[in-house]
């Protein structure tokens, strides 16, 4: 089974995020980047499927040095090879252009039996890219997946719906799944894995390698323009209780009893 696992580099969740000067993204020059959390669950699921069915796992990412870094981390976890979509022209991509380029790269690599992606990224968090790749590839998909079984030809997957309801669906392969947080416990890279990663195949493809024209990629190809990134105004009138932990706690209990009258 050939499985391609998509991964996005995002700022480490503990980073302090500051809006950049042009107010269209965050200042990302000094940040540490890691794989978006849901993508780690997707890669772990890919590795488990390979262990069961044999085959190979390929990690793919678009971006600069930060993408190379998360790809190397994926190889260290156990992926067999990596594809890095690297081109200054990719800058300013949106979900649509990223999905189009990844779909092109998957096709160039000879297609896949299964493509996995995290349900949503930790930065934009809109949960669009994976499902868009499925449409570009013309394959069926299932989103918000919490369990995967395969007989090598088709998939039986459990999807998580709202209100704690799960549904089991069946779909033929090739297919794409977006993987929900918590489906498994992602492994850590072992020292051996980290050493082995250095010898694994690492392809770098540019826009022209993928046969993508300038108006299909980056800012020009994007479907929307970013006007501004801002910290939203607080609508609520939260009352912050100050002082030492003791003082704040006493004030809080007073408020809950006498003002809110909920105790």
């Amino acid at each position, binding site marked *: 089974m050939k499985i391609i696992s998509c991964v996005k580099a995002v700022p480490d969740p503990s980073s302090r*995020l500051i809006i950049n000067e042009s107010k269209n993204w965050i200042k990302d020059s000094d940040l540490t980047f890691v794989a978006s959390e849901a993508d780690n669950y997707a890669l772990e699921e890919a590795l488990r499927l390979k262990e069961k069915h044999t085959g190979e796992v390929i990690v793919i990412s678009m971006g600069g040095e930060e993408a190379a870094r998360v790809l190397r981390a994926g190889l260290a976890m156990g992926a067999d090879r990596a594809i890095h979509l690297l081109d200054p022209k990719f800058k300013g991509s949106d*979900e*649509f252009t990223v*999905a189009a380029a990844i779909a092109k790269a998957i096709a160039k690599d000879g297609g896949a039996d299964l493509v996995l992606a995290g349900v949503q990224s*930790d930065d934009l*968090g809109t*949960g*669009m*890219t994976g*499902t*868009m790749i499925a*449409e570009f590839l013309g394959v*069926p*998909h*299932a*989103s*918000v997946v919490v369990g995967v079984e395969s007989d090598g030809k088709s998939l*039986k997957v459990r*999807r*998580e*719906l*709202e*209100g*704690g*309801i*799960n*549904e*089991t*669906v*069946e*779909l*033929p392969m090739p297919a794409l799944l977006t993987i*929900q*947080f*918590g489906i498994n416990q992602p492994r850590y890279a072992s020292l051996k894995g980290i050493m082995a990663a250095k010898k694994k195949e690492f392809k770098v493809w540019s826009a022209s390698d993928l046969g993508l024209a300038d108006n299909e990629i980056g800012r020009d190809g994007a*479907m*929307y*323009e*970013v*006007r*501004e*990134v801002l*910290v*939203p105004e607080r*609508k*609520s009138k*939260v*009352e*912050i*209780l100050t002082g030492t*932990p003791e003082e*704040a*706690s*006493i004030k*809080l*209990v007073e*408020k*809950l009893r006498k003002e*809110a009258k*909920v105790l």
Partner: protein
Amino acid sequence: MIFVVAEQKDNKLKPITSELLVFAQRMSRDFGEPITAVVLGSSVTALADELKTKKIDRVIMADHESLRDYSPDAYVEILKAIIGQEKPFAVLIGHTTQGMDFAPRLAVGLRRPLIAGCVEYENQAGKLILTRQIFNAKMNMRTSPKGEAPYLATASPGAFPGDEVEVGGNAEVVSFSVQTAAASRRKVLERLEAEKGKADLTAAPIIVSGGRGLKQKENFNIIFELAEAVGGSVGASRPVVDAEWLPREYQIGSSGQTVSPRLYFAIGISGAIQHLVGMQTSRCIVAINKDAEAPIFKVAHYGIVDDLFKVVPVLTKIFKDLRQAS
């Protein structure tokens, strides 16, 4: 024209549909565009009749046996055909599990923009600006879709007040003739309701919830102790359940339980939108978090910005003392 794609399950309109109608009604006033609700399903005349009582201009109903169960293939095929025929200005869809299952495919199929997870919109000199949340609702991004309409948008649950939907219309209902929708490649085999188990929080008057800020499973004891002292039940945010500190049944939020207690404590919970939609209607919300910028403070009534490991034990002691005194 503004399209609202109604979301229904088992032939009942989901609450997000009212929120989308409010979004559309506001947008309609600002852009002078009429509203059409689109409903897909099998035997959905009653839903069309319900929709036409809202202040909208038209209902398009695609009623066919093959649409009984939701499937992305059928939804994409039929919506593509209706949108191609009607050429709306905007297409509003719920930012729900179902909406986000088909909207990205529809956008790619139409080669048109999709702005997902919208919480606001503006009319800037006739141009549509859509605002969505990024970085787990810590920041907003204002975007303008490029090129020709239609523009697709999904609305975050809870962003538009569904109870403010204006009624009093008598919209015309038009049938969209469905020959046979493409056979769905994805087939539903079974559907399982979650076990309510011992942690049914929907009726709890007081809930004490802990999040990732607790750092590890063992630390959750302080949440249980506070809950006991205040006479409440314990809840959790998604990361806690994903890390297996607590079973799934404790989870509050869009993929867990939706609660509305008299008093809700959010401790070490940053307040991702998925959590907020599950608890924001609580009567009184207390947030304890050391990050003053955490979005949970946007919905909280009272807040303490400090280390939860210092505050929670003190609070527990106060509640215990109060109990003994009374």
